[in-house]
């Protein structure tokens, strides 16, 4: 696998946007050509080399190409937006829209990501070693068609309204999440190992949410179906004992499922 290393010089106060820097677009270009590719800096376009040192070796085949952001790019947005193949590694934090509209390939962020990571994602994989912000794997503002496929794994915590309008694919959060995970969810799987503050699955119509930690406050629009052990979702067995709910009957034709670990959620059972 060939590798292009982008070492950030400094992160400006006005955000950078690098949706043009993808394995799809870098393949076949020389290092010199890559240096002069355009990225967005506020409302103007600048060359990549103005904010990044470019090293490494490019290749012809985008699926064999890895882009490494070698450092903290906390004010760089849209990393890997719309990528279809190859790999991106961020050796630090990243700003908003990591892997938005992603169709294939893999993105690994070793630090935290801001909001909207994996929004309207269709395929591929995003791994966040730190924490994720709000709207992880959600639909864009106004849209009712969210994440359709692919997989997102967050090793830390995530913010509010994650998996909004999710239609397919899988999101795994190892830590805790804030309000409204899986709001308007219509399909796919959301697994939360930690705790949820409130409103799990608000107005969900389909899909499955599994919470292994504690749900502080649960919505009244869910029907209690009893307890179940070692649940199976898409061929994968999730061990443990869970309370099972169907809802959210605040909306028409609801058929979403929420599983909450029995050990910590006796307070939400009717």
């Amino acid at each position: 696998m060939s590798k292009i290393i982008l070492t950030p010089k400094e992160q400006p106060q006005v955000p950078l946007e690098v949706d043009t820097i993808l394995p799809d677009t870098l393949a076949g270009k020389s290092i010199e050509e890559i240096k002069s590719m355009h990225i967005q800096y506020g409302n103007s376009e600048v060359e990549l080399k103005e904010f990044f040192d470019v090293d490494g070796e490019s290749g012809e085949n985008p699926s064999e190409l890895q882009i490494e952001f070698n450092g903290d790019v906390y004010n760089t947005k849209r990393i890997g937006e719309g990528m279809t193949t190859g790999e991106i590694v961020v050796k630090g934090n990243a700003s908003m829209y990591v892997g938005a509209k992603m169709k294939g390939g893999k993105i690994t962020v070793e630090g935290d990501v801001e909001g909207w990571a994996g929004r309207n994602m269709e395929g591929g994989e995003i791994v966040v070693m730190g924490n994720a912000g709000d709207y992880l794997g959600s639909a864009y503002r106004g849209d009712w068609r969210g994440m359709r496929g692919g997989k997102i794994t967050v090793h830390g915590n995530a913010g509010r309204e994650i998996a909004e309008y999710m239609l397919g694919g899988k999101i795994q959060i190892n830590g805790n999440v804030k309000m409204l995970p899986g709001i308007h969810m219509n399909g796919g799987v959301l697994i939360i190992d930690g705790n949820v503050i409130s409103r799990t699955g608000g107005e969900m119509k389909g899909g499955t949410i599994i919470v292994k930690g504690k749900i502080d406050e649960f919505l009244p629009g869910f029907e209690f179906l009893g307890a179940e052990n070692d649940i199976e979702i898409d061929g994968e067995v999730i061990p443990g004992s869970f309370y099972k709910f169907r809802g959210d009957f605040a909306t028409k034709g609801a058929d979403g499922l929420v599983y909450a670990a029995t050990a910590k959620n006796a307070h939400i059972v009717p």
Partner: protein
Amino acid sequence: MEYIIKNGMVYDPLNNIDGEKMDICIRDGKIVDSVSKSAEVVDASGKTVMAGGVEPHTHIAGPKVNLGRMMRPEDSEKDAEAKSGDRRSGSGFSVPSTFMTGYRYTEMGYTTAMEAAMPPLVARHTHEEMVDTPILDKGAYPLLGNNWFVMEYLKNGEVEECAAYIAWLMRATKGYAIKVVNPCGTEAWGWGGNVHGINDPAPHFGITGAEMIKGLVEANEMLGLPHSVHLHCNDLGHPGNYETTLASFDIAKNIKASPKYGKRDISLYGTHVQYHSYGGTSWRDFESEAPAIADYVNKNDHIAIDVGQITLDETTTMTADGPMEFDLYTLTGFKWANCDVELETGSGVVPFIYSSKNPVHSTQWAIGMELFLLTKDPGKIMMTTDHPNAGPFIRYPRIMAWLMSSKYRNDLIENELHSWAQKKSSIATIDREYSLYEIAQVTRATAARVLGLSETKGHLGVGADADVAVYSFNPETQDASSDYMAVETVFRKADHVFKDGEIVVKNGEVVKPRMDGRTYWVNCNFNEELERNVISDVQKKFKQYYTINFENYEVGNEYMRRSTPIEIKCK
């Protein structure tokens, strides 16, 4: 500035020019006989030349258009253009922002566009957005089909008072023509209902849609306005509605057109008739009745229609037909907005996805095409998508290609569309193909004439505004029937467009993005005494019922950069 557009193949139906190789001379913003040697030459050899396009019915400005923009950020994300030079940025696929609307119409060679629904109370907002829509000449039609004053006057048989009210309202709101949407239905929606057909009375007022249409057509001809009554019939989008449509059209049959400006010969304009040509009793036995509607149009000279062609896109529906939008919302479950505009009208907005795989949508596509192809005289029919309701206006070139190529249509019918398109309509049996001359009629000449603007618009005769579109389509070597993809490409981005004698588009790109267009409105001098009575009546109602003061109502000249009143003396 002088220009000569040399050696183009000219299609100018209002002057009976059908593909003649000739030169078009331009001086001081007008078409002239000849120009001096210093005139700049634009070589149009091997190219098609037409007058600037005239859009008789679109929704590009005003509160519900803006509501569409606000409730659909995802539509803006789908289609965005960056700023470049003098050209401003913009966004929105189905509801483009104001500047982008102006640029995109102009790129297609359109130079005039009429906003077909202006709530009188929100006229200022409508004009503010029209000012921000560059290049195009514009006008707006005040909504009167559910207006309390109109209903009251017509219920009492006071057609003259109604005419005086309309004359005042056109001046106050800087309006251009009488627009009627689901007469009495939007008022009924204020009480949670609708009217069904034209003989169902409005609550409280008791007047029917039929009486409203008749009274407004009479008032329109009493005033002699340049355009006829612009009618969106009752029962839009409901199976079996074609009977209502035919009955509505028939109301104006014996009322003679008597414009005091322009050369219009119709007394009624039926808009987006595709939505009004449905047979059956439900979506299950729904079928096309377009042949019946086309037959009526063929046999009667008092009516002209536009189509509202489905383009099979994701779009945003918006109309003053509030109850219809609620029906649509219950059908789709998509987001829905609803507005009430006090004593005057209302509206609704719902996103919509027209899919070629959907049986109903495929049939709707076929019905629009049938209307185009079964109406014998293109002097009675106009190309619209009721933008953005049936699809965005940037699809006009695709509709042209469908009309000009039966092969294109058949490929679509055979390979893409749901089989209902063939089963429920006659579209698969029609092999008529439009010529460039007929395309020029349905996109320019007919609209200019029925709008009463054919003295200066829609043609290339001496004295016309120098609005000219040059397209890189060579009618001598290219065959639209087989090379339909070329039609779609070249009519989307014109080679050259002139507006008022200046080059505004070069090679498909807008080069004069800051130019201002005219605002046409009607200044009608009807009956001063009656008007005084009307105004005092209106002022009283403002105090009693409106949420704003009367003084906030009228639209001043500062709302137009190029105010272009059409003066009408009734005595």
